[in-house]
């Protein structure tokens, strides 16, 4: 009898302790929640050290850093603008590609998203090139690296001659697709050209084998379409402003010149300025549109 009571007492004490432990957690959340604004620290800065520590599990470690890079990019994208954004993207991708020297997709992600300026990325095409060149050293016959290096030079560094050279080198590698050679030619002749850009991005879009690459290409194609739209709309505005009467889209619609308020490929209406210029709404996700200038 006494033993049973004793046990019951212990059981109640255990339950009470459990409740208090859980409540303390809740209290902590209220009073002193863990800080979320602190930039996560990368404990292992040296990729060589990481490679040594991972021993037989380097591939898995590379995957872990890859996933951290993906998550980091995603969360930075959504976070409000702050200095030092995307700070870990390059180190994480660098660790990943050192641990797995053949992890080409990681370098290729870097090519697209490291090069891009704010808000889409840190604007570091030099880091992108570093990753790609490292990949090329380990896999010299992989044409995708040459393609991506050429692309960085073309799209972000505006170095059309170098871009064409890389495309050309890539086209000579085994299994290289035929359009790479075409791209070399196009870059050389129509480097600063929107049509050339459309051709390049279109190739990337149709041949992309990963989701995010395809989406990135699609995004660019939409931007190019918006540029085309703006040119076309500018011409229409110039021709029809007299008939419309006012420099407002509604006037043009009422005048039957346009069927509806023109929107960009993502559905945001274009802006019609007082001087008759058509621009993209800065609120549109397609903002800022790429510019084309004569090649360096």
């Amino acid at each position: 009898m006494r033993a049973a009571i004793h046990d019951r007492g212990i059981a109640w004490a255990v339950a009470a302790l459990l409740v208090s432990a859980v409540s303390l957690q809740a209290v902590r959340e209220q009073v002193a929640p863990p800080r979320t604004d602190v930039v996560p620290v990368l404990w292992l800065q040296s990729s060589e050290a990481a490679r040594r520590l991972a021993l037989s599990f380097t591939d898995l470690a590379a995957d872990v850093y890859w996933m951290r890079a993906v998550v980091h990019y995603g969360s930075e994208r959504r976070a409000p603008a702050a200095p030092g954004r995307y700070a870990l993207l390059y180190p994480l991708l660098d660790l990943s590609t050192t641990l797995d020297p053949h992890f080409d997709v990681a370098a290729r992600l870097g090519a697209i998203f490291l090069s891009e300026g704010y808000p889409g990325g840190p604007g570091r095409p030099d880091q992108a090139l570093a990753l790609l060149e490292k990949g090329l050293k380990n896999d010299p016959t992989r044409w995708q690296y040459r393609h991506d290096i050429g692309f960085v030079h073309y799209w972000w560094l505006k170095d059309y001659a170098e871009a064409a050279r890389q495309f050309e080198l890539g086209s000579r590698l085994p299994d290289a697709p035929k359009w790479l050679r075409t791209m070399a030619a196009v870059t050389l002749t129509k480097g600063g050209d929107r049509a050339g850009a459309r051709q390049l991005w279109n190739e990337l879009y149709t041949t992309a084998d990963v989701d995010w690459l395809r989406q990135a290409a699609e995004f660019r194609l939409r931007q190019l379409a918006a540029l085309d739209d703006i040119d076309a709309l500018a011409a229409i505005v110039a021709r029809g402003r007299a008939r419309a009467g006012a420099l407002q889209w509604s006037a043009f619609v009422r005048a039957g010149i346009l069927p509806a308020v023109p929107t960009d490929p993502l559905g945001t209406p274009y802006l019609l300025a007082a001087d008759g210029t058509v621009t993209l709404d800065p609120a549109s996700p397609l903002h800022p549109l790429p510019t084309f200038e004569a090649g360096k």
Partner: protein
Amino acid sequence: MSLSAVRKVAVAVFKESVRDRVPYSLVIFAVILMGASFLMSKLTAGQDFKVIKDLGLATMNAMGLLIAIFIGTGLVSKEVEKRSIYAVLAKPLTRASFVVGKFAGLVLTLAVNLGMMTAAFYLMLQYMNLTTDDWIKQGWRAPAHDPRLLVAIALIGVQLTLTTAVALFFSTFSSPMLSMLLTLAVWVAGHFSGDLRNFQTAVDSPAAAAIARALYYVLPNLDPLDVKNEVVHGLPIAWTSVGIGVASIAAYVGVLVGGAVLVFNRRDFK
């Protein structure tokens, strides 16, 4: 030493493991893979096949390593400690047959374990394969249920055989805890061999570099047997290097098992 005695002891070891351990490790493996695949697709940005393959191979490697070290170091020492060895050694089998039989039994256990994990692995890959769009597959450097994965797994098996031999050897004369640490140390050193070889670039002392170089030649080199990266990325396997690696590991296994037999033959079981 008679092969039939070795076989009988090996089968006994295998049966013991079937009763105790094989089902658990398989369940853990399956749970890890399935759990990982659920969590993954959001995080891998299209790399889920690479990650699943890496994870599957790494898990097989890790679990096999745990089995080899923990069970390997207890193979002989547990029997000696518990004194169950007295009755067995009074039977018509040599001490050598006993030791080799124990070793063979654990290797057999590991092989069956790996086999079952491989089957689960391929099933998982096939399931993922069926739920993936074709346009994604065109960019793959290696197919989903790549038969070359079997090569990587077989070589993991070879590494585990060596680890078992190391564990067995140490356990014939040292305590289980020390044996585990030493076995782990040899496994780690086996993967550091590249660094040992190039030690002179890291330190200034030529004496240290010479020692490191000597260690590199003496210790088993596990790096050539690691083809996981090549298989997952569809790269060619350096068959010559692998062949030499396997032959050298086989030699080490012979040395270690032979050494274990020698030590065991001379021991007094008080």
